[in-house]
């Protein structure tokens, strides 16, 4: 007799509890965001978003059940097919999807619509896990790097066609998983240096300071190591390249579409245009900042209630939390996210198959990226990017895709005893 594939006592209940805690807090916050003191509608009212979110939560539970009763081998075996199906959907979306504000994000029939860009994340995670699981797959080899980046960049290009820059950016989070799987460290050092240089070049008007800084750093690095001609030439070339880049970035930015330029400039100077481009960030910071230590109390927020913050039930849902529950509320939610991420790292490291571990780190990468960028943009640490806060933001596609993403990993983790130890 075949053993049942559901292993209730092997399910990581800590993760499941953290998931439900975040989903419920999110649901209460969505009600607060759309609450209208004069309308007196209940949180269960289907005519407002909190009622609808409840529907998404229940359907998410159905999805969880399906995932938990399915055979754990299914995901590994179907991973490439799932990936290809979503690539196919992403290809047809611009042609058959519904266009809103120049973007074609969703596809479906009638009122049932999904955003394939959201679901393609877990499909890509599955495909990468499948491809990278081979024991011979070594990310320090150029050929393997090309394959991995190819699988990653295909959906990115298709999403950029919609165009949805925010969602496309999320795929860069797989670099965290790549790091765990052995992508050489120098790429990250170069990448972080590149980002730091970009920010400094944009933030500091006088490029001459950056030239001095780079020159000093190059000299310091040359003096630090052995003084061979090759090293000196290599470092000098990198330094010159950095200086050239620093001068060219202002030019590059000026070639970006205007709304993206504005989003970047507002980051450096939020007072630039508080009623125009800076409006979102300014109002979002006012809402969160006015919460104080303890917050104004549930449903007592004024900034989010009265529509000062745009997109408050979706991408800016954190404002409602910050305003009504203050720093303490923010602390609790951020600690819940950190606990979840920590738990997922622990779980990923205990996997016996490379497939499960790679998938687990993909989940960590995506959740961390969303969590980091979403909250950072609401408090003015990052340009405004339209990506949701996992489990919090209103929306079926968003909740479902994060649920599926997470619970496939919980499923894989719960059945790890049955998997053959192939880990290297």
């Amino acid at each position, binding site marked *: 007799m075949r053993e049942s594939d559901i292993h209730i006592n092997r399910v990581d209940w800590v993760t499941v509890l953290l998931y439900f805690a975040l989903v419920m807090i999110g649901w209460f916050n969505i009600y607060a965001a759309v609450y209208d*003191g*004069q309308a007196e509608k209940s949180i269960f009212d289907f005519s407002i978003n909190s009622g609808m979110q409840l529907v998404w939560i229940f359907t998410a539970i159905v999805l969880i059940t399906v995932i938990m009763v399915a055979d754990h081998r299914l995901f590994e075996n179907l991973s490439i097919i799932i990936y290809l199906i979503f690539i196919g959907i992403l290809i047809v979306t611009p042609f058959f999807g519904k266009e809103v504000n120049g973007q074609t994000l969703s596809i479906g029939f009638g009122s049932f619509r999904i955003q394939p860009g959201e679901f393609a994340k877990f499909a890509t995670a599955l495909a990468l896990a499948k491809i990278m699981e081979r024991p011979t797959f070594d990310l320090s080899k150029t050929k393997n790097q090309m394959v991995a980046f190819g699988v990653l960049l295909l959906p990115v290009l298709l999403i950029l066609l919609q165009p949805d820059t925010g969602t496309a950016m999320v795929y860069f989070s797989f670099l*965290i998983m790549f*790091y*765990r*799987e*052995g992508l050489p460290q120098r790429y990250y050092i170069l990448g972080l240096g590149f980002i730091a240089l970009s920010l400094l070049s944009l933030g500091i008007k006088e490029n001459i300071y950056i030239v001095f800084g780079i020159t000093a750093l190059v000299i310091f690095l040359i003096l630090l190591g052995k003084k061979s001609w090759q090293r000196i030439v290599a470092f000098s070339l990198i330094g010159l390249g950095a200086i050239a880049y620093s001068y060219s970035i202002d030019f590059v930015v000026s070639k970006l579409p205007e709304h993206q330029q504005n989003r970047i400039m507002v980051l450096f100077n939020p007072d630039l245009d508080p009623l125009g481009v800076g409006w979102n960030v300014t*109002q979002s*910071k*006012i*809402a*969160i*900042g*006015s*919460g*104080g*230590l303890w917050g104004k109390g549930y449903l007592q927020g*004024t*900034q989010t*209630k*009265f*529509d*000062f913050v745009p997109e408050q039930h979706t991408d800016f849902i954190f404002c409602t939390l*910050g*305003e009504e529950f*203050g*720093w303490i509320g*923010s*602390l609790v939610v*951020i*600690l819940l*996210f*950190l606990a979840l*991420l*920590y738990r997922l*790292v622990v779980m*990923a*490291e205990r996997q016996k198959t490379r497939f499960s571990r790679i998938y687990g*780190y993909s989940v*960590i990468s995506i959740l*961390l990226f969303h*969590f*980091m960028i979403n*909250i*950072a943009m609401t*408090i003015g*640490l990052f340009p405004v990017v339209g990506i949701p806060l996992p489990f919090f933001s209103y929306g079926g596609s968003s909740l479902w895709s994060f649920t599926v993403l997470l619970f496939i990993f919980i499923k894989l983790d719960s059945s790890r005893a049955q998997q053959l130890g192939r880990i290297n």
Partner: protein
Amino acid sequence: MNDQRPVVILIFIFLIGAVLLTKLFMIQVVDDSFMKKAERNAIQRVVDHPYRGLIYDRNGKLLVYNNPIFDLMVVPKEFQVKDTTRFLELFGITKEHLIESYNAARKYSWVKPSPMIKQISTTDFAKIQDFLIDYPGLFIMTRSVRSYPEPIAAHALGYIGEISAGQLERDTLKYYSQGDYVGLSGIERYYEKELRGVKGVKYKMVNVRGIDKGPFKDGEYDTASVAGINLTSTIDRELQLYGEMLMQGKTGSVVAIEPKTGEILAMISAPFYDPNQLTGSDFGKTYTRLNRLETKPLFNRPIMAMYPPGSIFKIVQSLIGLQDGILVPETTFACNRSLVACHNHPSPVNLFGAIRNSCNPYYHQAFRKIINREVSSNTFKDTEIGLNDWRDKVLKFGLGSALGVDIVGEKGGDIPSSKLYNRIYGEGRWKYSTIYSLSIGQGEMLVTPLQMANLAAIFANKGYYYTPHLIKAVDGDPSKIPAQYRYKNEVGVDARHFDLIQDAMAEALYGTANRAVIKDLVIAGKTGTAQNPHGEDHSVFVAFAPKDDPKIAIAVYVENAGWGGRAAASTASLMIEKYIKGEISRPALQEYVLAGNFIY
């Protein structure tokens, strides 16, 4: 090699958490500017302006009330009109006005209301009220302006206007804010604290489009406004109205006082203006126009104009002489015209005769006795001592400094002391012959019409007065008026000395002011002529009546109208008759005053 990488990733995760929490701590806990910004965003402080107190006359008739006026406001964002022709017809405006006001509103704000039609009357408001609902973005804002059922007593009542920057700065209690209306003159200013009431404040929440979302915290911090206190004026509306009719087209003052209380029954400054002109949105323009007029209608003559008292001052001289024992009723002097000019009358005269005939030489000689009492063998010194001693006695009659009426801007007039003459002539270089003009109320002496009316009240009261005032009761309670108006001022002359004065004044009417005589109503009066170096003399008359139980004391000044017995005496007599009898029995005299031809 990959063994540390999970640790690096964990460190990265917690580093992100720490950065976010630190930044959140900075904006939520450390920096409190966001709370203020949030309040500015969503909480609107709406001031609830109280109704200003009303002012009634002494008989309970309304003098000042608040009239609601309606402004049609437009919110450009919400404003929609489908049928423009019908709209223009309904609201009674031209297409140009509609376009112009709409553009002005858009320029001001897309979401905040601006006026489209200002000051809609109550009847027009009733007409358009029902149609307003068809036009989104339009609503009516109600304000109130001061209104006057009769266009009278403008100077006494005063006006209100927007608070000035200077007044705002002096308002240390921070009651007022920019754009508030305050009393700027007259009763409105003096009783500002009583009339203004207490402002209320409502905190309401608004959303990003400025739409009202209800009271903040269920109105926990709201306060209701308290209407201003109603005042009862001492003014008699009918008398004031009648007096203004008589003074129409003339320049001068009429002040009537109830002697027993100091209550001002009428206070007229001619030329006057309609107080309804200085209300509402045209205040600034009208004020500038009135201020530029050569006739100075804004100048409040009864308290601001100063004239030499003239012959009327002889009564004060008589009283001081009697009280000091320098004069007795039997004191007789010859009408020696070599001292000072006089007119034909029997000579010599005793005190009674001197008042009745207004004999100048009599007072020249009497005043010398008052001044030079030989306390010092040095004539110059003796004069100086005598003058200052005399001056102290004159000041007790409420002359020489402002009486303290309850309107701002009162002038004090002037009674000279030795300082003035020392300054002009040098110490020890002037004596009686230098200052004798003072004996007949001329020279370096100035009084206001109000002080003159108060003198009449003193004569009527036989030696005391209550400071003249315009408010009889605050909130219906007479004891709430300022305490100084309930204080009896003694002038330092015994009542018995007034009998002769009163008799002589009653008698004088038959000599100098026949026109003022009323059958079966004994008026005691005295004519005066204030010399005017610029033209015709000013006609002056003071009186009180009835002589045995005075109900009214009055001073009338008609500028450039010549001798006191004509314009001023006639006007005073008509006022007295109007007040005491309620009707005029001498239409011919009224016609004579209205015609205004006093020089012949």
